[in-house]
């Protein structure tokens, strides 16, 4: 036993670069999500909706007269949510009431692990792959994890001992179930075209601009974005939390930090969805008409190692810009459309998207057979 540990310890110097790389990637993604997106999207949403609606938007919070375009509201929000009373209604199931927000927020965070935010680079002889976990089941992992977060909402609805929450919880369950089925099927076409579930493979395959998912799978793209909106539970699919009907749906009875966790989960899901969209349909980290080699050559004057670093920075930036673009679009949709009714959401999922997804698979298969 001791020898085994000693042997493992002995391998540390050899594994060190990999460990450092792994830690760096995790820290990077975690900072992006928790440090940048989760708090900032609240601000973006406020400002963006204000822009659409001819308003000024958040602009009051200030430190010594500096308002910083309303960015300080993020801070005040955080302080408010941290200091609010953590209210648990009488008759609620306390352990579950506590557990639910964690179940909701953690999967939203870890789902990003399989999304590549850059390609492969050789830095000082060490091969770096810019994805936290390059799983061969890739996207299936996202689905699997996302469906865990549904439990968070359902449990929250159940544990609150409130009829509105219960109705919201039931709606979440039904909506997520319906759309996960459809969402999985919409992506089958993508897997068929690229011949892989591994998201880095799909990313590499999109180096050619005309091989981007949106061109190879246009119908699949439209269906997927609809399902993704539904999974995200935002207008027009926000029936589980429809504030005009169900007060706030499954998180009616949540306050303070636990409420903030549901809020964060929603934003993180939006980031994840945008990430998946970009990785599968919008060329991931790739720039149209620019190949990896071409970019390396362009930065050749920096020397081979630094050229790789430069390319990496460019790719990562491109990826996040694309993600931001998608988040912006998702918000645009959220602020434009009214919401569906419960039965209409179900009908859309089962009667329209599901059959269309099956048709899409069939067409993809037929075209592939013909081309080959």
């Amino acid at each position, binding site marked *: 036993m001791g020898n085994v540990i000693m042997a493992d310890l002995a391998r540390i110097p050899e594994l060190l670069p990999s460990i450092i790389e792994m830690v760096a990637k995790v820290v990077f993604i975690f900072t992006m999500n928790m440090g940048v997106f989760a708090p900032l999207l609240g601000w973006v949403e406020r400002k963006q*909706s204000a822009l*659409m*609606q*001819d*308003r000024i938007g958040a602009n009051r919070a200030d430190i010594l007269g500096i308002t910083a375009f309303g960015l300080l509201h993020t801070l005040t929000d955080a302080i408010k949510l941290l200091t609010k009373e953590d209210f648990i209604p009488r008759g609620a199931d306390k352990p579950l009431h506590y557990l639910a927000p964690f179940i909701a927020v953690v999967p939203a965070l870890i789902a990003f692990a399989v999304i590549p935010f850059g390609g492969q680079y050789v830095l000082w002889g060490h091969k770096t792959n810019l994805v936290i976990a390059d799983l061969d089941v890739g996207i299936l992992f996202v689905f699997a994890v996302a469906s865990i977060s549904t439990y968070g909402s359902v449990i929250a609805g159940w544990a609150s001992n409130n*009829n*509105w929450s219960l*109705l919201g919880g039931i709606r979440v369950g039904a909506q997520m179930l319906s759309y996960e089925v459809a969402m999985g099927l919409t992506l089958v076409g993508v897997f068929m075209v690229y011949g892989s579930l591994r998201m880095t493979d799909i990313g590499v395959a999109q180096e050619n601009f005309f091989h981007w998912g949106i061109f190879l799978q246009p119908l699949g793209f439209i269906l997927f974005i609809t399902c993704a909106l539904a999974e995200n539970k935002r*207008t*027009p699919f*926000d*029936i589980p939390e*429809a*504030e*005009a*009907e*169900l*007060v706030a749906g499954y998180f009616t009875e949540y306050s303070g930090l636990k409420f903030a966790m549901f809020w964060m989960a929603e934003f993180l899901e939006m980031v994840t969805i945008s990430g998946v969209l970009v990785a599968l349909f919008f060329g991931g980290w790739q720039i149209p008409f620019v190949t990896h080699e071409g970019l390396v050559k362009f930065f050749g004057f920096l020397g081979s190692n630094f050229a790789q670093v430069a390319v990496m920075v460019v790719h990562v930036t491109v990826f996040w810009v694309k993600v931001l673009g998608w988040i912006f679009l998702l918000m645009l949709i959220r*602020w*434009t*459309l*009214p*919401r*569906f*009714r*419960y*039965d*209409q959401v179900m009908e859309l999922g089962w009667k329209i998207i599901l059959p269309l997804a099956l048709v899409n698979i069939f067409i993809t298969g037929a075209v592939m057979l013909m081309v080959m």
Partner: protein
Amino acid sequence: MSEYQMDLHTEPMILNMGPSHPATHGTVRFLLKLDGEKILNCDTEIGYLHRAFEKHCEAGTWTQVFPYTDRLNYNSAVQNNVAYALAVEKLLGVEEKIPARATYIRTIVCELARMADHFTNLGAATLELGALTAFLYFVEARELTWDLLESIYGARLTSNYVRVGGLSSDLPEGFAEHVRKVFIKNREFWREFDKLLTKNRIFLDRMRDVGGISQEDAIAWGFTGPCLRSVGVEFDVRKTDPYLIYDQLDFDVPVGTTGDNFDKYLVRMEEIDQSMKIVEQCLGKLPKGPININDAAVRNPSKADVKTNIQSMIHHFKNTIEGINVPAGEIYVPTEGSNGEMGFYLVSVGGGKPWKCRVRPPCFAITQAMGDIVKGAFIADIIPTFDMINLIGGECDR
């Protein structure tokens, strides 16, 4: 029914919706009996905003009633002022002697208020359906309309503008120009709103075939206004019992067919447009002249007069302390409020105070049909249906 369904013990869920609920605005309570999301029964309870309107009116003089009427349908407050003033003037028998300019201005403010009311109503309905942007477009249109009203009487919400026998003030300088500018913007907002929603598939799905009612039922329940016109009954007090100068104006009364929420929406949209036309016509024909009746026993003489003329001073004193002396009698004056027929039924036994001051609230009659309309629908259908009924707590509960 299969066996497992029979053995399953289920019972309907009782859900208390309101008065503290985002959709009921604190003014109404629905006691719902639900089978899943389906409504088996809906009991409507009102009265949360009861402020003893009639009792207050009976305690003050005839003139002191005006501020109370502001708070009936507060979205179009000045219409209530006008309706009440018309009723009192009729009771006094001076309705022929009201100067033409005052009548025109009353028509203008009534129609501006109707626009503001419909803007608010339609905007709020979309807000509750989740389309916040469309809501803000109409709120901005309403704010611009309120700017116009504010320039006339200095208040945005509660007008207290009309007086028995005239008005408290004339139109401000350059009002017609201001109206022209605002209407250009309002029409723009109207078009934007129309583009965002009228052909929006989700909006159509939510509004169409929801909240419909038959003509017979609508009449039996006492529907009036846009809700009645949406079922295809062409009834508009402005046309059937013309008051003010509506008989000299050219405007259309839009009617729907099925009375579902989408029809109510379309009727209101069209009415906004018609109101803008009415205001423009009135401004085109606006006569010059006094805005108050030349009868010191009805309308207070001007301040300058009061300070120089003993006769005027006595009138001012008596009007203020004792109230206008209204001869005994009773009167019912129907007017077309934004929600439907708003009638004032006044009883005087002589003297300076009303014996009874009753208002017929249009949304009171319509709201009582709520339970019938939503029975068998989904919880989510309550939202557009209730919004399109346009219950105004101040008017319904008085």
